[in-house]
C-alpha cells in the first residue's frame, strides 16, 4: 500500500513536470508553429539562477521567483533575437533554428559556467518525508504536485479571464483574424514565449528540487520527454499537453516500478514503444488541436 502510494505520488509529480514543460511547448507551437528545441536551455537558465541565488543565501521563495523570471526573460530574448527575424519561415526552418540555438547555448553554458554539475542544496525541511497515519510520503513530490496544480489553475485563469490570455487562445485558432481584430501580433507572441519560459522555470525548480544539482545538459532529457508528451496529447493542444505529460510520467514510473529486473534498462524504450502504439491508433494525438482553416 505504502509502496503503491509512493509510486503514485512519484508518477503524478513527474507527470506534472512533463505536463508543465509540454504546456510551454504547446503555447508556443499553437501560435507560431515552432517546435522549440531551446526549451530545455530555458530550464537550464532557471537552474543556474537558482544555483547562484542559493549560493549567495537568497531566501528560497525569492530565489525561485528569480529563476522563473530569468527563464521568462531568456525565452523572450530568444524570441526577439532568433525567432522574430524568422517570422515568415516554414515550421521546419523554425524548428532547425531552435535546434541550432539550443546547441549554441549548451556550448556557452559549458564554457561560461562549467561542464560539471553544480550542487544546489535544498533547505532541510524540504528533503524529509511527511507522515500521514501509517504512510510516509516524500515532501518534494508532494510540494511538486501542489506547485503543478497551482500553476495549472493560474494558467487556466490567465487564459480564460485576461485579454492577453484570450488573445493567445484566439491566436492559436486563427492568427490572421486575431490581427484583424487589432491585437498586436508581436505582443501576443512575446507574451507566449515569456509564458512558456515561466512554465519552463517552474519545471526547472521542481526538477532541481528532485535532482539537487544543475549542469549544462540539465534540460535535455526532460524536454525530450515533453516533446513526446506533446505529441501524444496532440501537437499544439493545451489540454492535450497536460494529458500527454501526465500519461507519460505515470507510464514511466509504473514501468520503473513493475518491469522485471532484466528489462529495466529498456524502460524508456518500452514507454516510447507504447507511445508509438498510441500514435498509430490516434495519429493526431489524444486531444487534437483545433484550427480554423479552409481548403
Amino acid at each position, binding site marked *: 500500500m505504502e509502496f503503491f502510494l509512493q509510486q503514485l505520488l512519484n508518477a503524478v509529480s513527474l507527470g506534472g513536470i512533463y505536463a508543465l514543460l509540454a504546456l510551454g511547448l504547446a503555447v508556443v*507551437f499553437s501560435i507560431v*508553429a515552432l*517546435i522549440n528545441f531551446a526549451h530545455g536551455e530555458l530550464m537550464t537558465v532557471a537552474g543556474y539562477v537558482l544555483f547562484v541565488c542559493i549560493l549567495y543565501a537568497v531566501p528560497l521563495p525569492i530565489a525561485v521567483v528569480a529563476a522563473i523570471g530569468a527563464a521568462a526573460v531568456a525565452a523572450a530574448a530568444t524570441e526577439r533575437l*532568433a525567432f522574430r*527575424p*524568422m517570422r515568415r*519561415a*516554414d*515550421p*521546419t*526552418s523554425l*524548428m*532547425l*533554428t531552435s*535546434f*541550432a*540555438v539550443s*546547441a*549554441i547555448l*549548451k*556550448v*556557452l553554458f*559549458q*564554457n561560461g559556467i562549467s*561542464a560539471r554539475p553544480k550542487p544546489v542544496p535544498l533547505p532541510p525541511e524540504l528533503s524529509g518525508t511527511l507522515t500521514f497515519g501509517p504512510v510516509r510520503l516524500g515532501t518534494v513530490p508532494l510540494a511538486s504536485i501542489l506547485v503543478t496544480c497551482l500553476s495549472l489553475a493560474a494558467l487556466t485563469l490567465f487564459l480564460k479571464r485576461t485579454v492577453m490570455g484570450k488573445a493567445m487562445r484566439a491566436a492559436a485558432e486563427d492568427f490572421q483574424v486575431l490581427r484583424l481584430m487589432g491585437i498586436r501580433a508581436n505582443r501576443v507572441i512575446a507574451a507566449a514565449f515569456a509564458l512558456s519560459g515561466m512554465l519552463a522555470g517552474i519545471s526547472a525548480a521542481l526538477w532541481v528540487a528532485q535532482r539537487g544539482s544543475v549542469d549544462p545538459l540539465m534540460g535535455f532529457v526532460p524536454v*525530450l520527454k515533453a*516533446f*513526446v508528451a*506533446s*505529441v501524444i496529447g496532440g*501537437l499544439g493542444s493545451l489540454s492535450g499537453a497536460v494529458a500527454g505529460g501526465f500519461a507519460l510520467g505515470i507510464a514511466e514510473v509504473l514501468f520503473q516500478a513493475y518491469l522485471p529486473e532484466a528489462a529495466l*534498462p*529498456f*524502460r*524508456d*524504450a518500452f514507454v*516510447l*514503444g507504447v*507511445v*508509438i502504439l498510441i*500514435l*498509430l491508433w490516434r*495519429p*493526431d*494525438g489524444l486531444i487534437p488541436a483545433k484550427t480554423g482553416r*479552409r*481548403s
Partner: protein
Amino acid sequence: MRLWFALPRTAWLSAGLLSAALALAALLVRALMGAGGDNIATLMLLQAAAVLALAVFSGNSGITSFGHSAFMGLGAYAAALMTMPAAVQKTALPNLPAWLQGHELGLLAALAVAALVGIGVGMASGAVVARLSTGSAAIGTLAFLIILHVCLVGARDITRGSQTFYGVPRLTGFGVALATVVLFTFIARLFREGRVGLALRASRENEVAAAALGVNVGRMRLFSWALSITLACVAGALYGHYLGAFSPKDFYFDLIFLLIAMLIVGGRYSVTGALTGVVMLTAVVQILRQAEAGIDIGFVQVPPIFGLPQLGLGLALLMTIWARPIGMVGLSELSPATFAAKLADPPPAATPAPRAEAAARSLAVRDVTVRFGGLAALENVSFTVPTGQVTGLIGPNGAGKTTLVNVICGQQRPTSGAVLLGDIRLSDLPPHRVARVGLARTFQNIRLFDRLTALENVTVAAQAAGHGRAVAEELAMAELQRVGLAGRWNELAEAFAYGDRRRLEIARALALDPEFLLLDEPAAGMNPAETDRLIAMLEELRRERPIGILVIEHDMRLIMRLSDRMVVLNKGQKIAEGTPEDIRNDPAVIEAYIGTKRPTLNQRGEMQ
C-alpha cells in the same frame, strides 16, 4: 514499379558529374592534408554517405529526421558483430548469444546484413512515420533516436552497453568509402527524379494538393523512409569499421546534429546541396577542432573553448536558415545543363490517347448532410453532374459550397448520404483514391508545388494516373501547351503570376485525365481579360474531351456563360436547379442573393 533507367538522361549525367566532383574533392583533401589526409578524406566520404541517406528521406519529404544517427549505430553494431574475430569476441563479449557468435564474415557480407537489418527496421518504423503529420513525424523520429539509443545501451551482452565496443576490424579505407559514396550518389540522385521522389517532393510542397492529385503520401513516405534507413545502416556499418571502436554515444545527438547541419547548410532540396554541405562543414569542423585547444595569434591568446566545433555548426546552421533557408546550393542540381543551357531541351509533347471509353458514368451527390455540432452545414443535398456538360454550383457566402467540395473530394465525411461516381462511393475514399477513381480538382486558394518546375507540377499528376516517366512528361507538356505555358516548362511554379498559376493548376488537374473536373472558384481574383481567356479555354476543353465539369463560382458572368445546368445552394440546402435561364429568373435565388424580390439579373447575369 517504374524502372530507374527510364529516367531522363540528365539525371544519370548529373549523378556522374556529382560523383566525379566529390571524388576530386576527396582526393584533394587526401593529397593536401598531409599525414592525416587519408583519414580526414575517408571520414568526409563516410559522412557524405550518411548525409545522402538522410537526404533521401528528409530532402524529398521535407520531414527532418532526428533518428538517422541511431539507425547508423544499429547498422554499425550489426555489421561489427558479423566481422569481429572470434577470439576477440570471446573476451570482449563473453555473454554473447550463441547465434551471434563467431561468424567472421567479410565486409561485403556484413554490409549485406546491415542492409537487411535496415530494410526490416526501416519498414517497421516507417509505418509509424508515414501516418504522422509533418511536425509530429519529426518528433516521432526523435522518439526512434531515444528508443534505439536506450536499446543499444541496454543490450549489454551484445553491445557492451555504454562501454566501448572494441575489436572491430578496420576494413573501411578510402577506396571502399569512395565506392560507397558514388553508389549512394547515384541512388539518391535517381531516386529524387524517380516516381516516388517526385511525388514526395510534391507532397513536401503541398500535402493536400499532392493527395488530391492521386499521390498516396503515406506510402511514398514509407518507401523513402525504408530506403533511407537501409542506406543509413550501411553507412553506419562502414563508419563502425572505420572507427574500429565505438559506443552508443557516437551515434547519438552530436552525430545527427552534424548530419542535419551539413544537409541544411548545403541545401536540403538537392543532392548537390547535400554533398556541398558535407565538404564545407568538414572544412569548418577541421579548422575549429585545431582551434579548440586555444590559439596564440602573436599578441592575443584565445583561451581553449570546449565544444568549438559544435558552436561553429550551430552558427552555420543559424546563419543559413536566416540568410538563405534553401541552403548554399538552393533548388537546382549540378547537371550538364549547368554548363550548357541548350542541353535542357523540353520533352516532346504527346497527344493524349483518348481514354478507353467506359460506359459514361455520372457524379451523383445523394442526400448529403453534414453537421458540425448542432449546425447543419449541408442538409439533404442531392444533384447529379452529368459527363460532357458543365454544371455550375453557386450560393451566397455560408451556403455550404466549401463543405460540399470537401465532401466530394473525400476530405470531409458526410454525416449521412454519399457521393457516387458511377457505383463507387467517393465519400468513403481517402482523397488520393478519389483522384485515381476519376475526379480531379483545383483549389480556391491555389495550391501549386511552388518549388517544383511547371513541368514537374503537371508530371506528378500524369504519373499518378499510371503513366511511366517518359510518357508522363510528354502528356504533361501537352497539357502545358493547352493552357499556353509550354514555353515556361522549366520555370519554378512560385515564379508564375496569379492568372498563370490558375492555369497551371488546371493543367495539372487535367493531366490526371479525369472523368470529372471540379473547379473551385477558378476565376477568383482574375481580371475580366483573364476571365475571358479562362472561359475560352474551358469551352475548348469541353469540346475536346468527354469530361464532366463542376464549377463553383462567384463570378456570375463566367458561370452563366459556361454552365449547361446550375445548382444553387443557400444555408445548406439546395434551393434551385436548372438551366442558367431558369436560375436567372428563379425568385428563390434572387431572394437568397439580394434579400428582396425587386431587383433582377439582366441578360449578362449582372445584378440590376
